[in-house]
C-alpha cells in the first residue's frame, strides 16, 4: 500500500487545523471548526475534508497515511477547568502537607507576573489538584545517600489505598522522599497498590519525574495522575475510531517539549502534553528555518488574548526544566521554552492620568473587542487596528463577522482619546505602538536574558495578528528579517506534522565534576543506566534501537550553586578530551550569560543527566511553489488601495496585494498590505517584502537585500 500522507492535526480553541505533507513536498491545509465537547469530531471532520480534497474517502486517506500526529488541548483544558480525576496521594509520613505548605509563598505567587504577586491581599492561591483529605502518609524513608532507613510499612499502603478508593479516588499518585535516588520503596508501594487495587491508575514520581525537589516532583506526579485518565480516555477513543476508519499506522501525540509520544506511553506522559499547543509553531519554525537557512529564530504567535514568544537557537529550541503549568504549580517536565504575555487582539487599552496602557486584561472572545458588536465597550487592540485601516472589515473571520468601525471609534474615543486629549486616530496609533513595543520588549527579554543579541535573529510571525506588527520589529529590534510563513494560519499543525517521535530519560544524581577519569567513569555509568531505561521503553513501543538518534545533556554548576546550566555531553563513555570540552562549553556559556570574568576557580558538580532519544526519520521536504517567475504580460499590481493611519505621517494611501496573485521573486515596496484569507501582513514604510519559493513573505529593511530563487 502506498504510504504517502504525513498528517498533523492541531486542536485549537476555535479551529482544528490540519496539514498533510506528501513525498513530493506538497503541503495541503484544512481547517475545521473545533468541537470542544468532543474534540475527536472536529479531527474526523477535518480528515474527511482532507480526504475529499484528494478525491479520496476517509478510509482511503487513512490507509495511505504513514503517520498521524495530533496536538490536543484535552489535558490543558482539564487542568484549566479543574475537570481531572479525583486523585489520592501517598507521601512519606511526616511530609503529607508538602503540597499544602507549597514551599511557602511559591504555591500562591509562583509563576505570576510581579503586578499580581505584589498584590499581597488579593492574590488567592489556585485550587489544588488533590484535596488535602485525600493525602495519606506512608511510613518509610530513604536518606539523601540512597540508604533505606525504613522499608515500606505495608499495612499503611493497604489501609490508605482501600480508604481512598472507598472515598472516591479515581487515580493515585505516589511521591516518596529521595525515590529518584533509590526507587525501591516507591516501587514497592506500586506493587502493593497493584495488588490491592489492580484497576486503579497509578503515577509513581520515579516514572514521571525522577528529579530532586519533592514539591515540584509531587506537583508533577499529582498533575499526571489528575490528567492521565481524562487524557488517556480521549486518546484511546480517538485511536479506536481512527483504526475503525482504517488508520494503518500509529497515532502519536504532541508533547510540550516538542516531540511525539506513542499512545502506548501516554500514561506517564499526560502532564507532558499540557500546554503543547504553542510548541507546534516552534517545531514548524525549526523545520522551516532549516529549509531557508535560518538557525536563529524568534517565533511570535499573537492570538486573541496572548502573545507567545519562543526561540530557536543554533537550529534547536530551548527548553525549560521546571515550567509552571498554572499559578503555583511548577512541573519537572521539560517544555519548549515559551514566554507569554497578555497582549492579544482582545487586550484592553486604558488611560490613567496622562498615561496610556494596554492589557493585561482582555475582552477575550466574549464580549470581545468593541467592533465585534457583541456588547464590548472597552477599546482593544483589534479596535485600534480597524481604526488605523490595517484590518479589512469584510474579510475578518472569513467574512463571518462584520466589524463595526463606529463602535471601535466610540470605544477608543471615550476611554483613551478624550481622557488623553488626543484624536481618535492618534490614540489608536498609540495603542498599536504600545502593544507592538510590549511584544518587542518581550523578544528582547528572551534573547538578552540568555546573552543573545536580537540582531542575530530572524523573526517568524504566525497566528492571527503577529503579521500586522512584525514588520516594525525590523527597526525596533534590529532583527535581520521577518518571515511570514505560507502556512502561517495553520503553522502549529505543520509543526505537529513534522515532529519526531522522541522521549527523554532523566535522573538527578549530584556528582563531583572534575577533569579526570573518575568523573568520566561516573558519567559513563549514569548514561549507561539511562540507556538501559531507554532501550526498555523502545522495546515497549516496538522501535529498533538502531533507528534512533540521541543527545545527552548534563546540568552543571559550581559546587554549592542552586541553578545549573544545561550543557551538551556525549551520552555514554566520555573521553578526557570530551570531558574537557564539556567544561569549556560550560565556562563559555557562563561568561556569555553573566559577563566576562564571572567564572571562578571553584569545584564543579553535575546534578541532572538527560538522555534525549528520538526516532531518526527523514524529514519531509517542502516542495517549491510558484516558481518560474512572473509572466511578462501580467505585472505585479495591487488589487486595491486603502487609507491607513500612522502616528508620524497621518493618513496614507496603502497598496493592498492579494497573496494568491503573487509568485516567487515578487517584490512589494512598503508601505503595503498583503492579504491572505483572514491574515493581513503589513509591510511598513522603509521596508520591502519578497515572496520566496516556499511561499513565505520575507520582509527586510530597504537597503538590506535578499537572494531568493525564483
Amino acid at each position, binding site marked *: 500500500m502506498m504510504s504517502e500522507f504525513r498528517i498533523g492535526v492541531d486542536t485549537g480553541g476555535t479551529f482544528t487545523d490540519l496539514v498533510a505533507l506528501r513525498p513530493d513536498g506538497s503541503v495541503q491545509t484544512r481547517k475545521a471548526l473545533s468541537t470542544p465537547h468532543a474534540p475527536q469530531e472536529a479531527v474526523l471532520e477535518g480528515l474527511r475534508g482532507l480526504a475529499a480534497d484528494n478525491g479520496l474517502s476517509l478510509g482511503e486517506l487513512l490507509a495511505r497515511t504513514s503517520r498521524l500526529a495530533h496536538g490536543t488541548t484535552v489535558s490543558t483544558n482539564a487542568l484549566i477547568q479543574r475537570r481531572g480525576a479525583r486523585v489520592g496521594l501517598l507521601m512519606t509520613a511526616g511530609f503529607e502537607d508538602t503540597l499544602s505548605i507549597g514551599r511557602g509563598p511559591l504555591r500562591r505567587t509562583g509563576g505570576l507576573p510581579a503586578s499580581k504577586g505584589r498584590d499581597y491581599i488579593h492574590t488567592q492561591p489556585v485550587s489544588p489538584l488533590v484535596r488535602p483529605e485525600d493525602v495519606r502518609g506512608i511510613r518509610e524513608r530513604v536518606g539523601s545517600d540512597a540508604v533505606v532507613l525504613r522499608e515500606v510499612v505495608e499495612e499503611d499502603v493497604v489501609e490508605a489505598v482501600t480508604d481512598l478508593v472507598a472515598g472516591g479516588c479515581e487515580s493515585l499518585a505516589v511521591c516518596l522522599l529521595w525515590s529518584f535516588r533509590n526507587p525501591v520503596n516507591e516501587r514497592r508501594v506500586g506493587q502493593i497498590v497493584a495488588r490491592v487495587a489492580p484497576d486503579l491508575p497509578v503515577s509513581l514520581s520515579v516514572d514521571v519525574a525522577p528529579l530532586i525537589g519533592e514539591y515540584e516532583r509531587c506537583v508533577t506526579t499529582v498533575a499526571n495522575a489528575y490528567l492521565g485518565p481524562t487524557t488517556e480516555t480521549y486518546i484511546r477513543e480517538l485511536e479506536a475510531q481512527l483504526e475503525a476508519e482504517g488508520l494503518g499506522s500509529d497515532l502519536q501525540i504532541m508533547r510540550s517539549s516538542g516531540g511525539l509520544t506513542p499512545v502506548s506511553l501516554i500514561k506517564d506522559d499526560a502532564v507532558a502534553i499540557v500546554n503543547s499547543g504553542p510548541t507546534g509553531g516552534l517545531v514548524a519554525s525549526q523545520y522551516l528555518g532549516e529549509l531557508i537557512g535560518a538557525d536563529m529564530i524568534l517565533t511570535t504567535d499573537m492570538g486573541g488574548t496572548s502573545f507567545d514568544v519562543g526561540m530557536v537557537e543554533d537550529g534547536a529550541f530551548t527548553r525549560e526544566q521546571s515550567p509552571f503549568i498554572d499559578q503555583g504549580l511548577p512541573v519537572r517536565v521539560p517544555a519548549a521554552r515559551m514566554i507569554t504575555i497578555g497582549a492579544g487582539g482582545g487586550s484592553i487599552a486604558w488611560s490613567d492620568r496622562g498615561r496610556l496602557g494596554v492589557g493585561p486584561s482582555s475582552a477575550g472572545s466574549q464580549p470581545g473587542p468593541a467592533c465585534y458588536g457583541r456588547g464590548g465597550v472597552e477599546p482593544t487592540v483589534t479596535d485600534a487596528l480597524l481604526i488605523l485601516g490595517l484590518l479589512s472589515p469584510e474579510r475578518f473571520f472569513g467574512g463571518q463577522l462584520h466589524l463595526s468601525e463606529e463602535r471601535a471609534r466610540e470605544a477608543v474615543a471615550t476611554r483613551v482619546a478624550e481622557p488623553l486629549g488626543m484624536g481618535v486616530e492618534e490614540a489608536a496609533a498609540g495603542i498599536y505602538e504600545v502593544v507592538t513595543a510590549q511584544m518587542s520588549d518581550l523578544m528582547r527579554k528572551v534573547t538578552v536574558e540568555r546573552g543573545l543579541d536580537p540582531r542575530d535573529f530572524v523573526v517568524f510571525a504566525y497566528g492571527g495578528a503577529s503579521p500586522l506588527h512584525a514588520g516594525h520589529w525590523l527597526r525596533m529590534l534590529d532583527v535581520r528579517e521577518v518571515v511570514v510563513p505560507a502556512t502561517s494560519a495553520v503553522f502549529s499543525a505543520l509543526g505537529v506534522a513534522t515532529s519526531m517521535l522522541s522521549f527523554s530519560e532523566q535522573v538527578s544524581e549530584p556528582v563531583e565534576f572534575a577533569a579526570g577519569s573518575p568523573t568520566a567513569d561516573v558519567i559513563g555509568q549514569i548514561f549507561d543506566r539511562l540507556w538501559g531505561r531507554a532501550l526498555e521503553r523502545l522495546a515497549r513501543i516496538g522501535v529498533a534501537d538502531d533507528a534512533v538518534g540521541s543527545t545527552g545533556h548534563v546540568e552543571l554548576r559550581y559546587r554549592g550553586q542552586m541553578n545549573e546550566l544545561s550543557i551538551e555531553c556525549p551520552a555514554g563513555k566520555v573521553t578526557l578530551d570530551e570531558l574537557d570540552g564539556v567544561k569549556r562549553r560550560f565556562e563559555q556559556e557562563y561568561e556569555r550569560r*553573566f559577563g566576562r570574568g564571572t567564572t571562578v576557580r571553584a569545584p564543579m558538580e553535575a546534578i541532572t543527566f538527560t538522555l534525549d532519544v528520538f526516532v531518526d526519520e527523514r524529514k519531509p521536504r517542502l516542495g517549491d511553489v510558484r516558481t518560474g517567475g512572473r509572466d511578462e504580460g501580467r505585472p505585479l499590481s495591487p488589487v486595491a488601495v486603502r487609507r491607513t493611519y500612522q502616528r508620524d505621517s497621518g493618513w496614507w494611501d496603502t497598496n493592498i496585494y492579494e497573496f494568491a496573485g503573487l509568485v516567487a521573486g515578487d517584490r512589494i515596496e512598503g508601505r503595503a498590505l498583503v492579504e491572505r484569507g483572514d491574515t493581513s501582513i503589513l509591510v511598513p514604510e522603509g521596508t520591502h517584502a519578497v515572496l520566496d519559493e516556499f511561499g513565505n513573505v520575507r520582509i527586510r529593511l530597504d537597503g538590506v537585500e535578499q537572494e531568493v530563487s525564483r
Partner: protein
Amino acid sequence: VSVDVDPISFEVLRHRLWQINDEQGVAIRTVSASPIVVEGNDFNVGLFDRRGRLATSGSGSLIHVNTLGFTIRNFIESGLDFDPGDVLMTNDPYLGAVHQNDVIMASPLFVDGEIVLWIGNVLHHADVGGIDEGSFCINARSLFQEPARYFLKIARGGRIDPAVERTFVTNSRLPDAASLDLRAQLGGIHVARERLEGLMAERGVEVVSAVVDGLIDDSREQLSRMLGEIPDGTWHGEAHMDGDRVGSDRVVTVTLEMTKRGDRLHFDYAGSSPQVDSAVNCTWHSTYAGSTVPVYAFLCGGEIDWNAGLEELVTIDAPSGTVVNAEFPAPVSICTIGFRWLVTVAANQAVARMLSASPAHRDRVCPSWGVSCNANNLFHHSPSGKTQGALLSDHRCGGAAARSFADGFSHSGQITAYSSNAGNVETTESKLPVLYLMRRQLTDSGGPGRFRGGVTAMSALTPYGVDQLTFKSTNTAGTEASNAAGIEGGFPGGGSQAFVCRDADPLGALAGDGAAFDPETLVTAADWLPSKADGIVRQGDVFGFYPPGGGGFSDPLLREPWRVRDDVAVGLVSDEDANGVYGVVLTGAGVDEDATRVRREELRTARLEGASTVEYRLGFDVGNGGSPSDTLEVAGGDGDPEIRCTWCGHTYEHTDDGDAVRARGRRGPVGGAGRWVGRRVGGDSSRFELQQVLCPGCGTLVSTDERRVDEG
C-alpha cells in the same frame, strides 16, 4: 534639561527599565551559590536616578531597595571619585546596609562623562565572619565582635580588583559561596550596565531621565491620592522582643504612633527601648525601610510602582540612641531580623488599624504577616577544619493574618519579600548533613477569628551522617508574646519557637516501628529555646522549630460553623479549639446547629464573668465616616452618633472626653490565644498577658491584644 515624553514612549520605556532591572536579578539568581538567595530571594536589584532615588525595584526583599537608595546617596556624598565601570561595595549598616551580611554593590552609569543613573543590588551573603556562624551574632556585645564593615571599590573601569575580592572572601567561613555571590552581584551590574548603555544610545539621556523622574512622580501622585481617601487619625503599633542575645531573655520593645493627615503618613517611634548591647539594634534608614514595608504591600500593592515616590509622603521620627535608631558603635548584625523586623511588625499593625477605619479600603486590612523570622543556621565543623553550613529556610512557612473578607494565607512567607520561598526538604538534605523527620502544618496555629489567621508549619530534623551540628537560633521574637496580632477582636496567631529534644533516637524509632513524627508527640519532650540560643545537636537529638501563624479577624464566635467544620476536617483546627474557642459542636462530619448556639451563649456568658469596666479608645473619628469594626457600628444621625454592638445592638456609653467608650475588659495568660503562644513559658508569661475588650451586653469581642505588664 527636562523634556516632554509622550505617554506612549513613557509606557514603552517604563517596561524597558523594569525588564533591564529584572535581567539584573536573573543573573544574580543563576550565579549565586546560596539557598538564601536562590530559593529565598534574599537579594534585590534596583535602578536609581543620578541622585540615588529609587526608580525601579526588583521583586526580592523590599527592605533592601529603600536602604540601597540611602547607601547610594552616602556613596555620592563620600567624596570618592567615580569613573565609568567602577563598582562600589559596602556592608556597613551605618551607611545603609541592613546588616553586615547584606553586601551592597552600586555602580554609576556614565554618559559623556556625567553620571546619569545608578545601578544597585544587595545580596545576603551566607557568612561574612563575626563571632557566630552565619554572622547573625547572637553572642556579640559589641560592634567589634561582629563581621567587618567594608567600604571598597570592588571593580575599577569594569574590571574586578582581585586584591579587594580576596580581602572580602577570605573573611568568610564559606569562602566558595562568598566568591560566587560576589561574582553574582558583579554579573548583575554588568548585565544592567550593558543594557542601559544601549537604551541611552537609543533614546537619549534626557528622555530616559525624564521617564525615571516620571516614574517616581507617578507613584507619589498615586499614593497621595490613595492616602487622601483614608480618614485622618492616629493609630498604635507595638512589638516586643523576648530575648535579645544568648543568655538574655529581657524584653525590648518598639512602640509606634502612626499619624495620617491629608496625604502624609508619619511614623513616630518615641517610647521605644534604649539601644542594647546585643546585635538586634536597628539603624535609622533600616527603621525607615521597615516602616515603608506595609505601605508598599498594602497601599501600593500591584497598582503603584514601588519606588522613591513614597519618600516625600512617608516620614519617620526615631529617637536617637534607641533600638530603632542605634548610634555607633551599637552592634547591629541581626538588625534585619531584629528590630528592623519588629519595626515592620508594629508598622503593619498601625497600617491595618488605619485601613480598618477606612470604609473605602477595608479590603486591605491585614494586621500581621510573618511577624518573626525564626532563622536557624546549622553548621558542621569537620575535624579537618572544613566548615559546611547554611541557613534553614523553613521560617518562610509562617502564616499571615486573616483579611476582612477571608481567612489569612497559610505559609504566606514574609511580608518583606512576597516571593521568598522555602526550600525543598531534599535540597536542604543534599546541602547539609541532616535528616528531616517531618514538616507539617501546625494545627491551631492560625489566630482564631471570624476569619482565621493563616497557619504555620513545624519542621524537625536530626544530624545525619555526622556526630553533631552547631545550631545558632536567631528567632526574632515570639517565645512569650507572639506579636502575631489579630484585629477587631480576632486572636493573635501562634508564636515562633525553636526546641531541642535530647536523646530522642529518631533514627532508631524510624527503623523500629517506622514512627510517624508529629508535633504533639514530639514536643512532649522538648527543651524550649529562648529567642536567641546556640548549642550542639548530637546524633539522636532532634532540632525543631515553627515560625509564627497569622492573627485572626473579628470574634471567633462569629465564624460560620461550616468553616470550622472544614478546618477540623483537614487538621487546621483541633476538636478542642472548635469547641472551646469557636463554640462549634461537631457531630462526625456535620455541625450540630442547636448545640452550637447553646455553646456559643455559654462562652459569651463565661467571658463576661469576672470582667471589669474598661475604657476603649476608638482610634477613629466617629463623625468623619470611619467604619469602626466588624463588631462595632456607628448608628444615629450626624449630630449625635452612637456606637453599637453589631451582634446584640447594645449602645456603648461614651466617656466624658468622647474619644472612648465604656466596655468590659478581661485579662488572662497569653496562652489563652492558643496553645502555640508562649510555649516556652507554658502559655503563662509574667511579662505579658492577653487583654480583651467585650461588649457589656453580649460579650462579643471588640479587641484581643497582647500587652506588656511588667513595667509602666
